[in-house]
């Protein structure tokens, strides 16, 4: 038998039971659609979150005071083993280090004339804008002053600027935080949220001023941006050694972006897998559907099977024919299921391009492969049953 004949035979068999095939295909297609939609959502979410975290670049390590790792809480608490501006300065002098951003966060009231607003205060270094890829809308970012003796300049987030100054010009104006005066030298472009902090409702001041303001002697974090020519391990070792030499002991925690991303990615991959797993329950039921319908079909076509055996089909040929029919049903189901998802996906992409939905051709291939496997599994028992029928008995069968 030529494969074209086998193909035509299976196709004819499917068409002969139009309604039955259609319903089976629909059931299976729903299952496939569930799996591919959920994995697209899962993958989209994964990419979205990873992108959130890599938007500041990838050659970063963060240093927090304290050796305990409790969700990065260590940096927020007070400490007797401070991470000081001197440390930041020292790290800056390393050849492999491109930029160092000392960070201290706090909260307070920012006053400008008669208006005021309680908001977040970020004490940073002059390289923060470049390192974190923040864009200035007006003026410039904090100037490259001595870390220990910076001038009292401030840069406003876009929202804070509007709240304090409305449409008036803010550059050159004075704002007060507690008893300290700052001159506004820049206004940032809108940036959005990051981890629940509105980066637009924020004021940037020099880290040293912030430490003074909050009466702290420890930074919350030092972000080190290193050159692409060194590996993460090298820079991690170097930074640790440098700080240990200074502090006498390892009283800080170093988190590399790679390590953080890796653990984040692990969690997200699990979430994605779980989502696909959830969808595959429906696919499992779809597989059971094919099995049910197919075993009914085989038992109905005993006479046909008997006839085929009688005119010389071998048991293997018959088995393969029925397998092909099951496979065809599953593949059609798979393709239509994917089509079912593709359409809303494309629509979504057109309407809301920012919605995190990833959409990989790989999924199509996987879906089809999965359909084929399920089709084969569901078809194997009925096909074997068909092949095993004694031709005479099958022919006589009513």
């Amino acid at each position: 038998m030529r494969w074209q004949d086998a193909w035509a035979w299976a196709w004819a068999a499917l068409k002969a039971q139009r309604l039955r095939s259609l319903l089976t295909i629909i059931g299976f297609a729903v299952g496939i659609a569930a799996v591919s939609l959920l994995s697209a959502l899962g993958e989209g979410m994964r990419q979205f979150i990873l992108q959130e975290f890599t938007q500041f670049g990838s050659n970063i390590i963060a240093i927090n005071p304290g050796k305990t790792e409790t969700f990065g809480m260590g940096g927020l608490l007070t400490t007797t083993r401070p991470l000081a501006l001197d440390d930041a300065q020292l790290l800056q002098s390393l050849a492999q280090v491109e930029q160092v951003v000392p960070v201290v966060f706090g909260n307070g009231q920012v006053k400008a004339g008669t208006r005021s607003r309680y908001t977040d205060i970020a004490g940073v270094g002059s390289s923060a804008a470049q390192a974190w890829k923040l864009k200035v809308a007006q003026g410039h970012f904090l100037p490259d002053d001595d870390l220990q003796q910076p001038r009292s300049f401030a840069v406003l987030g876009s929202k804070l600027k509007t709240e304090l100054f409305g449409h008036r010009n803010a550059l050159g104006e004075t704002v007060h935080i507690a008893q300290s005066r700052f001159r506004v030298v820049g206004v940032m472009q809108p940036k959005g949220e990051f981890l629940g902090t509105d980066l637009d409702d924020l004021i940037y001041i020099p880290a040293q001023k912030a430490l003074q303001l909050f009466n702290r002697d420890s930074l919350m974090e030092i972000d080190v941006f290193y050159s692409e020519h060194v590996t993460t391990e090298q820079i991690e070792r170097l930074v640790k050694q440098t700080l240990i030499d200074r502090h006498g002991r390892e009283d800080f925690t170093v988190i590399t972006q790679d390590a953080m991303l890796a653990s984040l990615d692990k969690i997200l991959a699990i979430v994605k897998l779980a989502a696909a797993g959830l969808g595959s329950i429906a696919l499992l039921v779809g597989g059971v559907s094919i099995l049910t319908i197919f075993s009914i079909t085989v038992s109905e076509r005993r006479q046909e099977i008997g006839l085929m055996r009688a005119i010389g089909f071998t048991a293997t040929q018959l088995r393969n024919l029925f397998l092909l029919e099951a496979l065809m049903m599953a593949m059609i189901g798979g393709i239509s299921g994917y089509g079912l998802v593709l359409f809303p996906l494309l629509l979504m992409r057109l309407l809301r391009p920012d919605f995190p939905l990833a959409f990989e051709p790989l999924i199509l291939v996987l879906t089809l492969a999965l359909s084929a496997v399920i089709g084969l599994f569901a078809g194997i028992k009925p096909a074997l049953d068909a092949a095993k029928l004694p031709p005479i008995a099958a022919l006589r069968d009513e």
Partner: protein
Amino acid sequence: MRLADYWQYSLPVFVRHKSRTALLTLAVAIGVCSVVLLTSIGEGARHFIEREFASLGTQLLIILPGKKETQGGAPPLYGTTPRDLTLDDMRAIAHLPTIDKMAPVIAGTTLISFGNRSREAIVMGSTPEFFAIRNLLIGQGQILPASASDYHVPVIVLGSKLKQELFGQQEALNQWLKVGDYRFRVLGVLQERGESLGLDLRDMAVIPVRSAEMVFDSPALFRILVQLKQAQLERYTEQRIRKIIAERHEGEDDISFVSQDSLLSAFYSILNTVTAVVGAIAGISLIVAGVLIMNVTYISVAQRRQEIGLLKAIGATRKQVQRIFIGEALLLTSAGVIGGLLVALLALQLARWFWPEFPLTPSGWALALATSAALVLGWLFSWLPANKAASLDPILALKGLH
């Protein structure tokens, strides 16, 4: 036709088509089972959180220094502000009649050392009330003395893990150890207890609040924990506290509140959404099973064409024929539902056995929903084929013709 007649009529069909019956039941059972199992994870998480919070006492209000006017943002969790929230501020609100207990918290990381062993740990400065509010039980020795509320007393209560790491099997009580640059005497060791709301208390130590001011050289409180006398007093208490703090802080109420209620409701709304979505996704499999029911019922109608013709010829009405096929589908669905529920409940029982700290509980509404969804789908999907059977022409059908 009586109910018993329907039963007698349909039963042989199931017996004759054993594998078909079994497979259909299996399909429905998979759907029902997955809905119940998956929603019970959400329910389990809810119980877990409830239990965690129950250990915190009922009416907890947390005061944080700092304030944010950004809409909908998180409260200022880092307790760094130009104007500190201090012990004196806490004293000033102590007289409020709705407050039952209060505990200040100064939290910081420092080096704790005993002999040649040392350990970087989080140290909390607080008062005896802290233990009552956080429901911390002492394993050995005692909690901070009453004098620790007002004075520097060089005593420390260790978390169980911290004790283990510093002392091993050695006796820890009444030993002197170093916290930062100061010496403290071990007064007690906390009972072993798991993580509570993200704070692993086994790995921490508690010292008097005045001592913490000294160790960390700052009077700034990180939090004030307030336990209210009864529920529903939060709003009122918040307003009173804001007013008092504003009087003391040059007219500025620069504090934020996190209440247990708001935390819980935030948790629950997330949890409910997740549970509903997961349940709905599992429900897709029920729809697939429904399509299968429809398919099989169509096949059944086609195979029993002559039988239907006979039934109609001897006087069965449209309604009765329809009822036969819908009834059969519903019987199969019910078998699937029962099977699915049994497997799900058994699996949950097993899960609870192996994993008692996370109580996976089937929620009543999920059981009811899964059952009714399956039955409704069974009815809906068998309706069309049953209708087809009912409208068969008796004479043609008897002859086996279309």
